[in-house]
């Protein structure tokens, strides 16, 4: 099987995340009003398939990686496992001692936290081996486009929260969407300037 290109990986990942958010916002809330137990199970687990797809994508990406990429994946996954493990232990001990009240829904945050730790660590490790590692515009989706898609996802949730009259969620999601949009704009301008200057230099060189 050929290596999955970074751009294709990012496109598939973002599509899965968009489906995940849509399911979480549009389908998952129905679990509270459903009376049938099998249907409750089905709706409660509806966000799982896109997440399983993301895990399969990651597994394929790591399997097809070269030796340096595998090293960065290993360190990223190691740090993520360590951080989530320690936080779970701390939470578990505090909850058992009844110092802190935690309900089961906190488990939802385990996987996103793990992915965030993995992503940040991998990015930091990759930078040590070269500034452009994993950020090569020729084989990955430009950052400003990824930020625009992220802003769109947050805006979608904000709109849904607004229609549901949830002021707190509307404010939070609209703020996130705005922040992502501003970042996308800044990155887009930097990207455009860089390419514009490169074009001018190549034109002068002729």
């Amino acid at each position, binding site marked *: 099987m050929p290596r999955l290109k970074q751009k294709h990986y990012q496109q598939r990942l973002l599509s899965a995340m968009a489906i995940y958010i849509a399911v979480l916002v549009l389908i998952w809330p129905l679990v509270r009003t459903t009376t049938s137990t099998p249907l409750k199970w089905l709706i409660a687990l509806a966000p799982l398939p896109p997440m399983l797809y993301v895990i399969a994508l990651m597994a394929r990406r790591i399997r097809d990686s070269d030796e340096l990429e595998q090293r960065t994946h290993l360190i990223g996954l190691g740090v993520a496992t360590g951080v989530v493990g320690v936080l779970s232990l701390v939470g578990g001990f505090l909850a058992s001692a009844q110092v802190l009240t935690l309900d089961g829904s906190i488990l939802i945050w385990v996987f996103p936290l793990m992915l965030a730790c993995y992503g940040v660590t991998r990015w930091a490790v990759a930078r040590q081996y*070269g500034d452009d590692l994993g950020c090569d515009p020729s*084989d990955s989706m430009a950052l400003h486009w990824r930020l625009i898609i992220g802003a769109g996802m947050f805006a979608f949730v904000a709109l849904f929260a607004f229609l549901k009259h949830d002021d707190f969620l509307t404010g939070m999601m609209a703020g996130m969407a705005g922040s992502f949009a501003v970042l996308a704009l800044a990155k887009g301008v930097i990207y455009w300037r860089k390419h514009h200057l490169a074009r001018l230099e190549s034109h002068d060189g002729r």
Partner: protein
Amino acid sequence: MNNSVRELRSEQGWSQADLAEQLDVSRQTVNAIETGKYDPSLPLAFKIAKLFGHPIESIFVPGEG
């Protein structure tokens, strides 16, 4: 470890992407090897030596960086 991968690649007129494709690694890995930020494994070093037709010890030499 010091290496002469960049010089050998330039002699062949290959881009980093061309070399990466022939070695079945990412372009970023080629860049990390050339800049001395990453020392390749023995199998990859042999693959590089075979590709350029030079003995491994003439491409990779012990040293700082």
